[in-house]
């Protein structure tokens, strides 16, 4: 098992290297001279020359790349061209906001997607199954930013039940945080719930057809015991690993959800950076996202090995 995990980690290294190469190329492809932005309105030639020296712009491109990579490895993702603040600090400030939203969304997705998926599998070919599939397809087709606007219109503007926007940390004011979190978490979790529902349904159908489930039924066990004690445990194995792979979807969805609900998180950071032409931040955020995504993939692989007895012992 340790060899298998080590092999997965080794495979992730060239991917990480290529991602950093891609982000570096992206930075070099950006239009305009970023140093004119850093140098400010005066555009002092001496300042620009000094900046070019700091960023080693006159060195060959591969020297520039490896110098930059060396900094990244040490945790230096560059600085914001606007404020001069280290990008990593900015990301670390915004990340808890998005993590709070992402966690709540995953909980919503699990609470809706898995039970409906199980129900659809148990009632395969009935109205319940068709309705669940229709709801899942609609969930996958609805643009979450529009769904957010519609919820704000209904719940905040008309019914005045919940605040329309803003953020509060769950550790500072839990009640206020939950109130502000319900709608965005539901919006972001809706698409993921549809995804989980589809996969839970097919995983359950596969397990329900297996020999050991037939044996459990033949032993005279009641259907609830067969489902919960035997089928569900095995059907959930791929679902657990799949949930870790939703990280990318969550981050992408958070960009739009945070924009609709004015949540000052990771997604809003990248959108604001694009509009402020703060390429340092855009580059840092893309790199951090890719690293996070690769690590989550790695975690999914390791989890799969850990929960799968055949791989664990083999």
């Amino acid at each position, binding site marked *: 098992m340790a060899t298998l995990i080590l092999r997965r980690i080794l495979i992730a290294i*060239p*991917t990480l290297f*290529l*991602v950093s*190469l*891609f982000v570096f190329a*992206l930075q070099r*492809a*950006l*239009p305009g001279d970023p140093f004119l932005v850093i140098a400010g309105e005066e555009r002092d030639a001496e300042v620009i020359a000094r900046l070019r020296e700091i960023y080693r712009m006159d060195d060959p491109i591969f020297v520039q790349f490896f110098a930059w990579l060396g900094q990244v490895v040490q945790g230096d993702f560059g600085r914001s061209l606007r404020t001069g603040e280290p990008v990593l600090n900015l990301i670390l400030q915004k990340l808890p906001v998005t993590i709070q939203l992402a966690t709540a969304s995953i909980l919503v997705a699990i609470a809706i997607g898995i039970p409906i998926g199980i129900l659809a599998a148990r009632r395969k070919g009935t109205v319940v199954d068709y309705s669940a599939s229709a709801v899942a*397809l*609609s969930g*996958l*087709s*609805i*643009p979450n*930013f*529009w*769904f957010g*606007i*519609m919820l*704000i*219109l209904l719940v905040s*503007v008309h019914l005045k039940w919940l605040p329309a926007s803003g953020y509060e940390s769950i550790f500072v004011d839990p009640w206020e945080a939950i109130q502000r979190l319900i709608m965005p978490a539901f919006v972001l979790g809706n698409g993921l719930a549809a995804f989980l529902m589809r996969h839970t349904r097919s995983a359950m159908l596969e397990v329900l057809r297996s020999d050991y489930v037939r044996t459990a039924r033949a032993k005279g066990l009641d259907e609830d015991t067969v489902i919960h004690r035997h089928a569900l445990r095995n059907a959930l194995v791929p679902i657990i690993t799949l949930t870790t792979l939703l990280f*990318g*979807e969550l*981050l*992408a*969805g958070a*960009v*739009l959800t945070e*924009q*609709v609900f004015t949540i000052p998180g990771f997604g809003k950071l*990248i*959108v604001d950076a*694009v*509009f402020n032409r703060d*390429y340092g931040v*855009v580059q840092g*955020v*893309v790199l951090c*996202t*890719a690293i996070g*995504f*690769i690590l989550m*993939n790695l975690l999914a692989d390791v989890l799969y090995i850990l929960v799968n007895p055949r791989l664990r012992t083999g």
Partner: protein
Amino acid sequence: MASLDSISSAGASAGVTARPGVFARLLRNKSALIGGSIVLVFVLMALLAPILPLADPFKSNFLAIRKPPSELYWFGTDELGRDQVSRLFFGAQASLLAGIVSVLIAVAIGLPFGLIAGWYGGWIDIVISRVTEALLACPFLILAIAFAAVLGPSLTNAMIAIGLSAVPIFIRLIRGQVMSVKAEDFVEGARAVGARDARLMFCHVLPNTLSPIVVQSTLFMAQAIILEAALSFLGLGQQPPAPSWGQMLNVAKNFMEQAPWMSVAPGICIFLAVLGFNLLGDGLRDALDPKEN
């Protein structure tokens, strides 16, 4: 083809039911029929927009600012008094164009790389696969935002950004298909009679990988429409005053309390168009998959 037809008719006469054609199977598939009909409505909307007697989608009317839906303005007017119906029809052009162009970009780049990686294998495959994995490591929308940041905000650049960010998906799909088809006996047979690599790749392997590419392209159309709407919603796609559904929502969110109708219709259009392509893609997959029949 003649020999294939004769085999098929021989099979039928021997009591074996002939397999219906793809089109007949599509017509029998409810999902494909509903999806295809929805898509057709939007295609007609986009094509007929310049011909139909609609109000000018660009012309402001300061006497009709933010009018609610009425007999004169079915879906109301926007913050500059422009008719929402007219802007929805012209917005359909932007959404469908974004879908088509980005799919074409993704296939045009993904196809040769996927074909080469799958066919030749070895170090070429390793290099292409590693680059593909690296690009897949970045979430779709974030990658599209990064490309849009480099290229600048416009509908054309949004389409390029969406297309580029989908390239790795198509490379991976085509590579996998080529790898499975190249091991088939008919490819070995063609090689044995002296066919060269280019002929084998383009005349024997490629035609047999088209079905999943068509299905993936249809499903990706749905994703491209959402992505274009998302980029326009963020201000990185279609720029005002030109209409697109996402850009209409971007403006509408500022007038949620004063003019809620501005948000409703563009969102429904995006939802239905995406649903249509998803249903059509699912139906195509069933119709083109021999195992289903």
